[in-house]
């Protein structure tokens, strides 16, 4: 059934890493297979952050040869960065199969991203000034600990706990999805998209790439396409209600916005809390209570409801 959560602080930074961990841990029962975060830190002028994976977590149990394969993949990635005149300012490896780069310089980022992903087994999870996308197998406390998220400061975040129903239990099928190659856009989704293959073929005809068979990835690609066409986030969300079939509630985050959309049947839950300086939402109220224990007013958005908030 999956759990989704989002929060946005208006005009200030907060410990969004630990806040999102608390929310997602409260939703663990909705999806124990994997947990993912899209957290937005303070944008750095000129620099951008790239998160990528060079193997699946389960690949690490496939014998000693995987370590050499990973080394080769990392070298292939960094060769592409050099080719594109990109300077590596910092490189961290929270796990052997996932990396975080702080980069500067370079030209066409979309082209560079496409070249990086030509290396077998390499997938860029996110790229942007503020966005950092982290996802792995296990619950929120496991992933948070693994990737040091509890100390992450930022303005907003979305997250997901996944119960695999439509595709495999692996990192590439976990949420959130980055709206490749659109900087700083990420999506989490709870539901089933019934015109997935029709919409996917349409997006592929328009030149977009898919890295998984998970229907939620379509929402990221679809959003990226709309934003690249000049739509605002709100326009894209409203259009999706007409064009995407199925039952869904999904959240989209950009560098400075957080949006939500609910399908025409309102069949997938979302509880919303709004105050002057914080907006929090989740599949269940218990997640919001994990960061706001005091008595608060919440409500369920209605069918076809679209909302967008500014950081």
């Amino acid at each position, binding site marked *: 059934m999956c759990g989704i959560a989002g929060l946005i602080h208006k005009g200030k930074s907060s410990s969004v890493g630990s806040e999102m961990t608390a929310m997602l841990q409260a939703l663990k029962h909705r999806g124990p297979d994997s947990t993912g975060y899209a957290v937005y830190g303070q944008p750095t002028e000129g620099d951008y952050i790239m998160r990528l994976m060079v193997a699946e977590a389960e690949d690490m149990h496939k014998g000693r040869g995987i370590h050499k394969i990973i080394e080769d993949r990392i070298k292939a990635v960094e060769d592409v960065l050099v080719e594109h005149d990109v300077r590596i300012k910092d490189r961290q490896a929270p796990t052997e199969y996932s990396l975080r780069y702080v980069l500067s310089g370079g030209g066409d980022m979309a082209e560079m991203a496409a070249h990086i992903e030509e290396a077998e087994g390499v997938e860029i999870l996110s790229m942007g000034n503020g966005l950092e996308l982290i996802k792995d197998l296990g619950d929120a406390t496991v992933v948070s600990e693994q990737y040091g998220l509890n100390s992450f400061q930022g303005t907003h975040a979305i997250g997901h706990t996944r119960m695999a129903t439509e595709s495999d239990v692996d990192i590439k099928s976990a949420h959130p999805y980055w709206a490749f190659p659109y900087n700083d856009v990420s999506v989490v989704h709870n539901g089933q998209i019934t015109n997935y293959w029709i919409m996917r073929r349409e997006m592929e005809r328009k030149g977009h790439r898919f890295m998984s068979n998970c229907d939620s990835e379509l929402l990221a690609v679809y959003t990226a396409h709309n934003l690249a066409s000049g739509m605002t986030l709100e326009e894209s969300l409203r259009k999706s209600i007409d064009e995407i079939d199925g039952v869904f509630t999904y959240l989209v985050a950009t560098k400075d916005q957080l949006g939500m959309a609910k399908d*025409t*049947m*309102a*069949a997938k*839950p979302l*509880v919303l809390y709004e105050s002057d300086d914080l907006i929090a939402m989740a599949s*269940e*109220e*218990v*997640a*919001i*209570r994990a960061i706001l*224990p005091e*008595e*608060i*007013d*919440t*409500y*369920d958005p*209605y*069918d076809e409801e679209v909302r967008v908030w500014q950081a």
Partner: protein
Amino acid sequence: MASVTDEELKQMTQEERVTALGMRTEALTGKSLYVEFDPDAEERFTYPWAPDVDFNKRTELDTDKMTTTEVNSSIRELMREGYGTIVLKNPRGKHSLGVGILSRLNLIIEGSTGYFGVGLIDGPNVRISGRVGWSCAENMMSGTVVIEKNAGSTFGAAIRGGDLVCKGSVGSRTGIDMKGGTIIVGGDTGALSGFMMQRGRMVVCGNAGKNLGDSMYDGTIFVGGEIKSLGVDAVTAELTDLDKAWLTRKLKQYGLLPDKGVDHFTKVVAGKQLWNYDNLEPNEKKLIL
């Protein structure tokens, strides 16, 4: 029919009251498991195994660090000890609180609950000061549940009796498959409210979303605000004096009677063209729908 006064109702037998209030078709309202009771008994309000509680014996339970199972077990234990008024503090959105209470009890929840709160109940009076999540009071048989703030979707799904009241707004599919009782919403309700409703009454003081009363078999829906659209086989009907009297009484009882009264309410009932009310062939049904 002219309105009935409280005094007149007090003088009537239960059978007469049912008739006077136009509830003839609501035989399932209240206790319905007659196998457990003597139908001729003057009063049948408790299950044979129900603990004998004293409403004046009150206690509080801080649920902050407790699991749902621990809270619900504690409620039963306290009832066995004779506590008739139990206050749950710091529920913080926990799911399935207060479910399956089958006897008299004043349950006061100070805060908000998650999914399936106070479901499968038969008799208690519940007051919730916060908000409730999806499927609150699902399959409720009797008693009253009053929520001060908002409620999630499928509010009162398949209830068979009692009064379920949300003073705020509720989500979608309110009263889906309801088979009796009364659902009252002080604010708005979402899409597909009253879907496949079979009996009972639903009152929405605010607006109703699209497809109201879709595929309803029977029962009545009253809406004080705007209706986005009616569902298949839901039709409007004349608001009678009896309806107005009943609405006034019910809304007044819960402090939800609008200043302008109830004359502006729209009444929605089943058109009874969809279900098997006649001997029409399926193809003929399609023609008239």
